[in-house]
């Protein structure tokens, strides 16, 4: 087990295309860090550079206190779980899990002990004699994890391990991975494009976009205090609503939407947003902070009217889609609320949870 440090890591391909543009990241011992971002953001390239499967164009990677830039993958003492499992098809489950140990010339009894232990942990003991083709997707992924666990490496690397599984199995395996990390708290770097996976698994989430790190933080911190418009929009489902507004100071600080609706800024945010009065900015507000109106609304909740476009009943809640001056918005309302397309629905906007985003820097103020 070890800490991992990335110092000014750059990956440049032939033709000058930079997939990773000088990122810095320190991962503590035992920490579970998830790299998340859209396709092409550089997260998988970063993971592959940590694994030694991609050469580093510039910068340094440290694993357990050593620079590993020129160390081949087999000498980095890491284990990796791939998206498509990458099990050796001609070997049994036991042989797959034992392969790395055999190559490292472990005694037979030790190999047997470690494989049995990992198989018990992952509940795959009855599968040890089977070939990978006789396993389901979930079982294959467990074997892939088992192959990583038996090595007892310094670092676990996961490259979108759940992407090939169906939605139900994905949720189940997510819990399994979390459980395994609780039992074997090895430093883990996990790559996914699924922000739910990132939020549920990570001690810290690293949001990447276009080869740079947008923000690093605990899941809740990222959710409630996003640093940039990208993070605010990427984390959370349905995504945060963004609405062009103007900051006004007319009998208190207010923001005005394009259709003329004025919403008062709650007192605790006045100091922060005050310097921006007169500016055109973007309001960010999550769907769960646009709800049905309630009696005895708490301070800071403002009313706005929405012309309903589409209603999506989800069971435990209903999503109401509407437009404000051509901008698509979404509200999360109580399932008992009556909302019909084409009708006006009064909504309560909880401005205590509003965000203001600078249109020039795309940073959350």
């Amino acid at each position, binding site marked *: 087990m070890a800490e991992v440090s990335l110092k000014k890591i750059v990956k440049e391909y032939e033709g000058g295309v930079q997939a990773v543009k000088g990122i810095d990241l320190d991962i503590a011992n035992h920490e579970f860090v998830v790299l998340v971002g859209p396709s092409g953001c550089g997260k998988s390239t970063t993971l592959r550079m940590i*694994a*030694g*499967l991609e050469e580093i164009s510039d910068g340094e990677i440290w694993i357990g206190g050593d620079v590993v830039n020129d160390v*081949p*993958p*087999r000498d980095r003492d*890491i*284990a*990796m779980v*791939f*998206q*498509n499992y*990458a*099990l*050796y*098809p*001609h070997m049994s489950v036991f042989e797959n899990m034992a*392969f*790395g140990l055999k*190559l*490292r010339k472990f005694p037979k009894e030790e190999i047997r002990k470690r494989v049995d232990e990992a198989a018990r942990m992952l509940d795959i003991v009855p599968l040890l004699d089977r070939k990978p083709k006789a396993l389901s997707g979930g079982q294959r992924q467990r074997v892939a994890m088992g*192959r990583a666990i038996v*090595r007892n490496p310094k670092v676990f690397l996961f490259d979108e391990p759940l992407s090939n599984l169906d939605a139900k199995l994905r949720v189940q395996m997510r819990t399994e991975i979390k459980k395994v990390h609780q039992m074997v708290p090895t430093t883990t770097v996990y790559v996914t494009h699924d922000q739910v996976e990132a939020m549920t698994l990570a001690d810290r989430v690293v949001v990447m976009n276009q080869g740079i790190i947008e923000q690093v933080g605990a899941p809740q911190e990222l959710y409630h205090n996003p640093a940039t418009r990208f993070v605010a929009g990427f984390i959370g489902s349905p995504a945060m609503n963004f609405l062009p507004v103007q900051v006004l100071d007319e009998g208190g600080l207010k923001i005005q939407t394009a259709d003329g609706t004025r919403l008062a800024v709650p007192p605790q945010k006045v100091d922060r947003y005050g310097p921006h009065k007169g500016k055109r900015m973007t309001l960010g507000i999550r769907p769960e902070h646009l709800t049905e109106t309630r009696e005895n609304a708490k301070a800071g909740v403002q009313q706005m009217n929405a012309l309903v476009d589409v209603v999506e009943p989800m069971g435990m809640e209903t999503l109401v889609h509407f437009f404000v001056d051509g901008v698509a918005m979404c509200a999360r309302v109580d399932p008992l609320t009556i909302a019909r397309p084409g009708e006006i629905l009064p909504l309560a906007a909880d401005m205590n949870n509003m965000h203001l985003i600078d249109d020039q820097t795309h940073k959350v103020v």
Partner: protein
Amino acid sequence: MSATTADQARARARNKSGSLRRQHQWALWGSYTALSAFVIMFLTPPFYMLMTSLKTSAEISAEKGNPWIVQSPTINNFVELITSPSFQRYFFNSAWVTTLVVIISMSIAILAAFSLSRMGFKGSQAIATGVFLTYLVPPSLLFIPLFQIVGWLNLLDNTWVLVLLFPTLAVPFCTWIMIGYFGSIPKELDEAALIDGASYMQILFQIFIPVALPGIIAATIFAFTVGWGAFLYPLAFLYKGEQLVLTVGIVSELIRGDVFAWGKIMAACVIGALPPILIYTFLMDYYIAGLTAGATKG
């Protein structure tokens, strides 16, 4: 109303499935007819060869009687051939030449294909294309320049010349099949092995060769066919009896001037055809799987 609609839908579905069945039957009939024509066309010469090999010289030269049926079967042709020291020599020469050609060709092809498909060095794509292009040059054009080279090497009329030359025919195609097959193995497999601690040679021998076995068998069969069945190069480069291989030996031993020992020629052909037939019969499934992978994923 809804019941009527459901009935109509069921009737439509029945009609549709009926027409699908009819189409399927026509396709089956078409396939069987075409396949039967091909089977007859391709099996007629071997059948004639087998029938003739079982006839006496008198029966072969008789003008009367049905040439497709053996009146008084005999295995004399086979016995005489098998006990003939020169035929034994030709068979033995063919066997060791083919074995060496297969071993040499496959060793080169597997190593070349692995490095070209997996090690990703500069120019590997161009070299892979070049390997395939060399296969497109007809051997009948090459034997004249090769004659010069073989002359310089002082290998004319020496069976070892075939061990040197046959791989030039077998290696490009075998490499091409293996590149296709290795290319179909997911890249993550070698990456997983690299992380597990394997060297490139361990990846090749412990992962790639077992996983690509169907492709290797397909390529091996091709190399075997090249070594066993080639006629032009042995004819051009070998002259003396003790150096000859089966294909040329049959012709030079059993055709003297305008006298053709048809019974023995056909028996020799049957014996010569046995090893490939046996190999193809046992490895056919692998052969087809290997060729398909090479063709579609190469």
